[in-house]
């Protein structure tokens, strides 16, 4: 059984009768059992997957209507609710939380006969970019198991690139899909804000985050977007994409497109291998008829500080509900007074979440909001104006996804500010609501490099067309696992 096929190929193969959903699912589970001890992409695996695959095969055989996924095994980041299954956010705080409802993306994929093969590892409550802050231990990069796979959707990227599933859903608050996709040589997508419903996605920083696919190819991302985007009455922030078909015309190319190269995202400290890969990508795009030139977004310098200020504030509020009174983990309240119980209960947060709770209480507080939180919102506004200006001139913007190569596990975990700067190229898309994609483009010393493209709001389709064009210009080595 070839587990390395793309989502579109999988659908083709099942439709042609070459493979069955059951056989593919069984082989996928076997793969997980053989490699995941080493990689730790999963926090839990769906015991019922084989039965679900068998049911879908039955539907196929009897000629019943079958959803577009045909039993495709998909992994889901463990911050999205699947009814009656554990959703932990990789936190001890939600050790025993069983979601009583489906996230909108989950209902939509269920209708299309996808199989949720397991819940993917992540940084606790999505705060981090290495998966080292998972309360259940880090994931490993399949390209080099001593290295981080990136994060926070590290488990999603690992599971896709190590063939433990065909595709995955992650969430991207400041690069959390694109960063691990870049580090693991997968395609990672952050859609226009509001394109995908967040209902059932456990909030970290709700005003800027989006669910996004991690896939092997750009086409697979377009395929998934066709199923999970659109207005959702359960999420007032969703936007109407009028049932856009992201797959049609995906090979339209980039001829005549104007592309701006973001100067501030290739600044000092960027790895030379990353710079040269980006320059290579630019010349490949030029070779396809695009017109590329440098553009400056001055506010990018302040974007990381604004990003962490805003996310800490929102997280401080979003995570306040974890007081262990209505759900959470086993911890008796006998003998405690309200405040002392909650303080004790919240000790189940890991160190990074704890730190961000403190920052999230500090930066928007009465005495400090003006210096921190309000200023951050204003930077966000000015950055948005700048990028809107840029999109008047350019169809697309380009930059490396991450300024550095995948680094060793443990290398930066003790230096929070060093970790901040790894996000410098990705947070802009979140702060401004623009769609962005990371495309696998190079491998340097056995470590992947991804290239990031950005487009204006609701130009997701054009962005995917350009990403597909760029993807076609390289043939990358296979993951060595």
């Amino acid at each position: 059984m070839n587990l390395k096929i793309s989502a579109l190929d999988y659908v083709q193969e099942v439709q042609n009768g070459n493979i069955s959903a059951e056989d593919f699912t069984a082989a996928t589970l076997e793969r997980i059992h053989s490699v995941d001890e080493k990689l730790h992409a999963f926090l839990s695996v769906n015991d019922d997957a084989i039965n679900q695959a068998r049911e879908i095969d039955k539907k196929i055989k009897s000629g019943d209507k079958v959803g577009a996924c045909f039993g495709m095994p998909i992994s889901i980041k463990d911050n999205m609710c699947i009814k009656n299954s554990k959703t932990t956010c990789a936190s001890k705080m939600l050790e025993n939380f069983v979601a009583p409802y489906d996230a909108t993306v989950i209902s939509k994929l269920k209708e299309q006969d996808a199989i949720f093969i397991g819940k993917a590892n992540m940084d606790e409550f999505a705060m981090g970019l290495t998966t080292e802050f998972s309360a259940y231990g880090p994931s490993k990069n399949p390209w080099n198991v001593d290295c981080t796979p990136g994060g926070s959707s590290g488990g999603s990227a690992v599971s896709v690139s190590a063939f433990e599933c065909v595709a995955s859903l992650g969430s991207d608050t400041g690069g959390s899909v694109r960063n691990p996709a870049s580090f693991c040589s997968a395609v990672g997508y952050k859609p226009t804000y509001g394109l995908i419903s967040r209902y059932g996605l456990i909030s970290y920083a709700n005003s800027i985050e989006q669910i996004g696919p991690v896939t092997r190819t750009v086409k697979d991302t377009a395929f998934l977007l066709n199923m999970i985007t659109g207005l959702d009455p359960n999420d007032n922030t969703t936007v109407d994409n009028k049932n856009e078909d992201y797959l049609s015309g995906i090979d339209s190319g980039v001829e005549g497109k104007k592309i701006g190269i973001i100067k501030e995202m290739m600044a000092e400290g960027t790895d030379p291998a990353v710079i040269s890969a980006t320059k290579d990508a630019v010349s490949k795009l030029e070779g396809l008829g695009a017109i590329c030139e440098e553009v400056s977004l001055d506010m990018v310098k302040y974007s990381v500080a604004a990003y962490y200020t805003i996310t800490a504030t929102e997280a401080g509020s979003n995570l306040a509900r974890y007081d262990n009174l209505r759900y959470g983990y086993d911890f008796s309240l006998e003998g405690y007074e309200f405040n002392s119980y909650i303080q004790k209960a919240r000790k189940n947060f890991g160190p990074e979440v704890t730190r961000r709770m403190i920052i999230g209480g500090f930066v928007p507080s009465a005495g400090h909001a003006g210096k921190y939180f309000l200023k951050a919102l204003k930077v966000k506004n000015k950055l948005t104006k700048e990028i809107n200006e840029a999109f008047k001139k350019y169809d697309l913007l380009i930059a490396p996804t991450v300024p550095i190569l995948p680094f060793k596990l443990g290398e930066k975990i003790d230096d929070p500010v060093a970790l901040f700067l790894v996000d410098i190229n990705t947070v802009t898309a979140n702060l401004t609501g623009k769609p962005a994609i990371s495309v696998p483009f190079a491998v340097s010393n056995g470590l992947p490099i991804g290239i990031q493209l950005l487009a204006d709001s609701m130009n997701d389709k054009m962005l995917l067309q350009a990403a597909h064009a760029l993807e076609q210009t390289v043939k990358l080595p296979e993951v060595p696992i």
Partner: protein
Amino acid sequence: MVTEEEIEKVAKLMKIEVEDHKEYVDKVHAMIDYFDILDSAGVDDEEISMPEIPITALREDKHIPFDEKLIEKLNHYKGTYVRAPKMS
């Protein structure tokens, strides 16, 4: 500069009990100090913007009960009451 007392006060506000003091205080300090860069962004005159939704796009006022007995899926106590600790 953020003082240690301020950090402790905020921790209490957020119902966070900090034991390993130095570890937390130092890192939180470093993170907050980094935010000082915002002072040089020159954004005082900027507005704050938000997405908008027309009132007509909001949910209609209809009663649709949740399809399951939610309380049975939660931690609860004394019949269907949720129990909380005493309020001091």
